[in-house]
């Protein structure tokens, strides 16, 4: 879907045809979900967050000034939402469940019986490792790597979405790539 088509749909939504927004969701849901999934290591949470981003975008649609592409604007909302989510998550402390038996302290493990639906899609171990390693990257590198090497955004678009200058984008892309390459190499994947 081109930017012109996006604008047509947006005009229709703003004119009162709310159902037209479904086309925008369908068009961008995979891209948004992939980015969110790279930020959150929980499938269900990523689903909720993706929906939340689309609802926020719909609510803010009237403030879209059309100075940039709709996709760039949507990605900005998505990136900021995830950034805020990370900030909030860091404030939550995880308390291990420990029990003392005799002299030993045993940590209780509560197994998650649910299967990650993605794992049935990601058959190959190599891709699972790549996913893990991307998730383990520092925030700045992960953001930029996902936008560039998974979503295929241009350097300029990334600059707009992340609100950083172009040379900074270049530096972060180089470092992020080098970081990931070294980690995958260390795990014998490349």
């Amino acid at each position, binding site marked *: 879907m081109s930017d012109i088509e996006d604008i047509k749909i947006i005009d229709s939504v703003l004119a009162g045809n*709310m*159902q037209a*927004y*479904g*086309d925008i*969701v*369908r068009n961008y*849901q*995979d891209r948004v*979900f*992939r980015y969110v*999934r*790279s930020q959150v290591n929980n499938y269900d949470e990523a*689903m909720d967050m*993706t*929906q939340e981003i*689309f*609802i926020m975008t*719909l*609510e803010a649609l009237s403030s879209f000034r059309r100075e940039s592409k709709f996709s760039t604007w949507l990605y900005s909302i998505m990136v900021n939402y995830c950034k805020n989510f990370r900030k909030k998550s860091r404030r939550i402390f995880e308390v291990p469940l420990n029990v003392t038996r005799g002299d030993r302290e045993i940590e209780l493990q509560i197994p998650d019986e649910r299967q990650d*639906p*993605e794992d049935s*899609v*990601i058959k190959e171990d*190599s*891709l699972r490792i*790549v*996913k893990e390693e*991307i998730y383990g990257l520092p925030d700045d590198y992960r953001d930029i*790597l996902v936008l560039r*090497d*998974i*979503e295929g955004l241009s*350097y300029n678009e990334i600059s707009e979405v992340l609100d950083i200058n172009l040379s900074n984008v*270049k530096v972060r*892309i*180089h470092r992020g*790539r*080098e970081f*990931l*390459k070294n980690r*995958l*190499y260390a795990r014998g*994947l*490349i």
Partner: protein
Amino acid sequence: MSGHVTFEKMSDLYDGLIPSEEEKNEISRHIESCPLCYSEFSRLKKCLGLCLELKSSMASTLDFSGSVMRKALFRKRRKRLFRFGYAAAASVLIIFGVTVFSGRNDIERNLAKLETENAEQVKEVPEKGHTKSETVIGILRNHKADITRVTGEYVEGRIPVSGYIGLQKDLSGRGINFGFMDDYLVPQTGWGMGIEEVGAGQITRESSAPYHQPDGQYVRFRVYR
């Protein structure tokens, strides 16, 4: 080209960001000929290739549009409801405020009324040492005194010596200031020696004078406010 190709150059080469064709060819030639740079560039390409593979496998497998639209509509309704709730709450507050304000006005009105009534009542109670002219005039009439003058400061009159004692007691008993003068020796037209002492219970030497005057004599007096 001197030395190996930096990672930044390799990354730019991958993205097609080497500006000059000459430099691009030079870097490519070096990578082909240098085993170290070749393996490094191969790793980069493989790494980024895996990222692209991941893109196709990382999908939600679900259509969000339905649930997004449902949630959005629900929130819109909830917002409208909240807005209605706020409006209702604001109305209640305004009505409450008006009631309180008007109640306060009523209270203030009642207070003002009460104050007026009290003031009226206070006015009617003669202050000690001072009284209304009418009261004094009433007393004087009771004692059959002739009232000759009433001013803002005093009531002037005359009374036969025989009645003076009673008048003196009555006025003193009510704490009313009065003065008198012995003018039985002076012509009735003038003030003679003038007024002496003023104040209840302060009758001095002169007060006893009228008692010794012959019958038919009178005392001129002034009762002060």
